[in-house]
């Protein structure tokens, strides 16, 4: 077998390129084998309510993270968060995430007028599109 004549720089670039290509391709093969059949699986997690400095005292922000543990990306993910106190819905907030890619998460914040305690908040995904 005769190898083409190349200098060390060309062989280095070739080796780096081949390594990168093989790494990317094998990663994609593993991903394809493990996850491609699973539909999107969405979870919603809420953070601790906090009051951003310099804003209205009546404005409480609640961090929200939508995760997708499935194999398909979800688009236009609609999330609803309710503030329920004494069995009564005090406030209702809705947020749409343009994309939550497979095995990824996206974050945002919602604001409430009443000071919510963590256990008074109920969150769920209303629906999403398959892109």
């Amino acid at each position: 077998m005769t190898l083409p004549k190349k200098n060390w720089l060309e062989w280095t670039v070739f080796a780096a390129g081949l390594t990168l290509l093989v790494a990317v391709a094998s990663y994609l093969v593993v991903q394809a084998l493990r996850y491609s059949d699973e539909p999107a699986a969405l979870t919603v997690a809420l953070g601790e309510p906090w009051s951003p400095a310099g804003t209205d005292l009546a404005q409480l922000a609640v961090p929200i993270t939508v995760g997708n543990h499935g194999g398909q990306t979800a688009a236009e993910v609609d999330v609803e968060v309710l503030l329920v106190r004494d069995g009564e819905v005090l406030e209702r907030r809705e947020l749409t995430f343009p994309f939550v890619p497979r095995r990824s998460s996206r974050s945002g914040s919602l604001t409430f007028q009443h000071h919510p305690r963590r256990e008074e908040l109920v969150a769920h995904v209303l629906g999403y599109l398959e892109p």
Partner: protein
Amino acid sequence: MHASQDLHDAPDLAAPQKSSVPGSLAEYGRGLAGGLLFSLPLLYTMEMWDMGQVAQPLRLLAGIGGTFFLLLGYNRYAGLRCDAGLREVMIDSVEELGLGFLLAAGLLALLGVIDAQMSAPEIVGKIVVEGLAVAIGVSVGTAQLGGDSPGLAGDPDGDKPEQPQQERGGESSASGSCIAREPSQTPAVHSPAWLSGQLSLALCGAVLVAASIAPTDEIHEISVRAHLLHLLALTGLTLGVGALVLYSSGFRGATTHVRHRDRIDVVLGTVSTYLVSMIASAALLWFFGRFDGEQFDMGLAQTVVLALPTAIGASAGRLLLQSS
């Protein structure tokens, strides 16, 4: 990749075909410049980033395979050196894909499209989608942007059995193209190698031009509105533009690379370019997920709409990408 011919006069006579490091550096520089020049519109396009988030691993793998095939064809028929064997062409294509991925990763990070907080599938998806486009740009840039060296050495291995006496590896070759040139007395039939070379370059041109249009939402938008008559007229225009570029516009290379002896040549050339355009159009649309969940009619309409830019790229690419 290879250094230009003038570097062959380097003092290292023991390895006359080995290119010097500065020569290689210049080539990679051209490749990087070409990669940016031809793929910047795609790096700055949101639909491409979305595609990277949405695309399934299998589709990305198919994209890598298709691009590799395209690079093989391009490097074989329009690359820097015509005497490159299959192994050398493959090495070049791997290098170009690697450079494409690296360049795409660097630029996407600079543009803030990828960052460390994102998950691995998302980052890899975006880099692959953009990197494929950059790799084609790197390949075209390396071969086309080098101005002062013809960079051609002899004829391709075994493609011209009718001219066995031609000097191999000689730098005095008068042939300007890597494609087996027709002898001056035009034969009755083209060799299959000639045709596959022409169609490879047409495919490269088609993808180069249409890749920045295929991912946009506008193709779908136009197809939804298009009437059947619009589509028919677009088909006519596509054929007409292909014929115009190839046969009557005086494009560089039109007289040397395209045979127009009689009307049948014109019809055959136009139709084969149209065929390549439709295939490239459909392949790009499939890769960008434009056929997902679509009925056949809608898919066909989109293919026809995109075929106009691909046909211009295919016919112009067939002429301009040849190193003549």
